[in-house]
């Protein structure tokens, strides 16, 4: 089975989806000849032609708004927004329309739309190229939100998103695009939306996280295990809406201790929702207060400060130790 990094996995998945269904269209800024600024769409225009893979004018609301119309009109659009920090103009389309049209039409209008959007920090990008705004998307009714942290899941979740009759935002962690390789099957498969994944089993404490921070959590867990200090389980949520509350409950019930980790700012972040879910489904198993490790409530800083901003092994390890003390 071929080994691929995440960006390669996304590229071959888009290629496969375009090949198997003529309704699939891939478009956005620089996705054509240039193959996308991260090369997710490399060679796709050559292989599938300009009507199927095309550059759009530079306008995020226009891209998502047009994609909504295409979806309603019988196509399966996969729109790329270049960076999550540029999604804000497109939020109007997602929140005012994509998530509502099915309900507003009593199910007569369906919006099988996929929006792919690279997000998060860790690559010394220019300002406003590193935002994580999953909390805004998850808070908007009618949208599904998924976040792969492995090449395998990147393919399975993207394929599931295209199969899904409802609008799905696929958040792709930029930092993980090329960080590691993994066997990614050539054949079609899906990772069901709404299911979390135990990224690392453990028995003393559960770290619940997603995206880029899965790598940080695994790194901290390995170090603590190597030191013989503690056995940490890492739960990769993969799907932020719907949330896999069952998996959260099972993981925390088992260990009795949890730390929730994300790179988006702390206040109003999705971590609060996860903590609420923990106390709803696993309150009587808890042996210590649940701690959150997150970005601070500041605009994502210029990259000279990036290493202070992003949660890292040291901050997570401290939180794990505090949670184990009680």
């Amino acid at each position, binding site marked *: 089975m071929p080994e691929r990094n995440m960006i390669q996995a996304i590229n071959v998945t888009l290629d496969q989806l375009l090949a198997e269904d003529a309704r699939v269209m891939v478009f956005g800024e620089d996705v054509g000849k240039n193959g996308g600024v991260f090369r997710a769409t490399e060679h796709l225009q050559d292989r599938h032609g300009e009507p199927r893979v095309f550059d759009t004018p530079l306008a995020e609301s226009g891209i998502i*708004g*047009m994609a909504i119309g295409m979806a*309603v*009109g019988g196509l399966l659009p996969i729109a790329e927004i270049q960076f999550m920090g540029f999604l804000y103009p497109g939020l109007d389309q997602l929140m005012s329309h994509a998530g509502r049209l099915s309900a507003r039409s009593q199910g007569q209008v369906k919006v099988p739309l996929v929006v792919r959007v690279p997000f998060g920090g860790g690559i010394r990008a220019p300002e406003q190229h590193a935002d994580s705004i999953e909390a805004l998307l998850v808070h908007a009714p009618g949208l599904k939100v998924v976040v792969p942290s492995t090449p395998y899941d990147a393919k399975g979740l993207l394929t599931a998103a295209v199969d899904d009759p409802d609008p799905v935002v696929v958040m792709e962690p930029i930092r993980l695009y090329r960080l590691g390789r993994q066997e990614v099957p050539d054949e079609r498969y899906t990772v069901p939306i*709404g299911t979390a994944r135990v990224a690392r089993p453990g028995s003393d404490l559960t770290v619940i996280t997603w995206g880029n921070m899965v790598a940080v959590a695994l790194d901290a867990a390995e170090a603590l295990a190597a030191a013989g200090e503690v056995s940490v389980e890492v739960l990769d949520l993969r799907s932020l809406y719907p949330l896999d509350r069952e998996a959260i409950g099972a993981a925390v019930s088992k260990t009795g201790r949890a730390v929730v980790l994300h790179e988006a700012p702390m206040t109003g972040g999705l971590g609060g929702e996860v903590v609420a879910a923990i106390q709803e489904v696993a309150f009587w198993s808890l042996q210590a207060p649940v701690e959150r490790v997150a970005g601070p409530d500041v605009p994502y800083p210029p990259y000279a400060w990036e290493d202070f901003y992003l949660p890292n092994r040291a901050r997570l390890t401290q939180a794990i130790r505090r949670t184990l003390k009680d």
Partner: protein
Amino acid sequence: MSESWPVAEVLSGGASDVPTAMQRRLYEDMILLRSFDERAINLQRQGRIGTFPPSLGQEASEIGSAHALRASDWVVPSYRDHGALMVHGLPLSNVVLFAMGRTPSLSSALRALPTSIPISTHLPHAVGLAIAAQKLGTDDVALAYFGDGGTSEGDFHEALNFAGVFKAPVIFFCQNNGWAISVPRARQTASETLAQKAVAYGIEGRRVDGNDVLAVYQVVSEAVARARRGEGPTLVESLTYRLGPHTTADDPSRYRSAEEYQDWKESRDPIQRMAGYLMAHGLLTAEEDQAMRQAAQERIQAEVEAAEALPPVEPAGMFQHVFAQAPSDLAAQRRRIEEAVPHA
């Protein structure tokens, strides 16, 4: 600049080559829409429906434009476009249900989106629908409705720009009724006309007398034909006037003069103008006119009764169609609300 943007008119000239049956149909539908709006305002005053946006005065724009489409074309409406939706096949009872705060079911056979409440954010949808038709190899078109205020929104510009770049078969039908609630047209743009904005996007622009139903029908039909032939989008500026309030919650006397209103009402009412034209050309008698008005009242009565006969809504209605299949969170939230509903 406006000299190069002539306003198309028909009623002031000689006989139109629009088929006679269509001319009468256009008139009949304008009567129906006017009667419906008057009835809806009454229903709102009686507390039987909620806030309602009447299209009084804009009947020619609504009816003339929608009749230029065929059933497989897409209507992408704003909140004041129940007239166009009615022509396209939406039962008026659904308009009543909408004004009752209920989400009416659009039939899946009806090629229309739910009315857009935010301003102009639906225009990119029309572009996408047109592109879907284009890529699926049909010659269907999409027609989007919006107003003069809508031309100030970013999505208006993005939609026209995308449509131009992709040569999408879409018609942007702007009803310039002079007022965006209380803000006059002059405060929306320094452009002399709205149609000339088409130039910036490399697309066709047209102005039409929006109170001349035959001219609207003709200009939009031409735009539709161009789009079907693959010749790209058109921006149509339909010059009309909102005789009524923005909605039943609005009082236009706060912001516009009685003289302006009187002028439009007395000399430019689209229904009176068309009646005069039809009668002058021997295409309508006073008795037929009376019969049309009577038939409209009866039809509206039946539609209102159909809407009011429906049982009250159940909590399930707001959950059922958010997703094709409700996630377990949503199912749990629904159960909690249903458990708290007192049973009769």
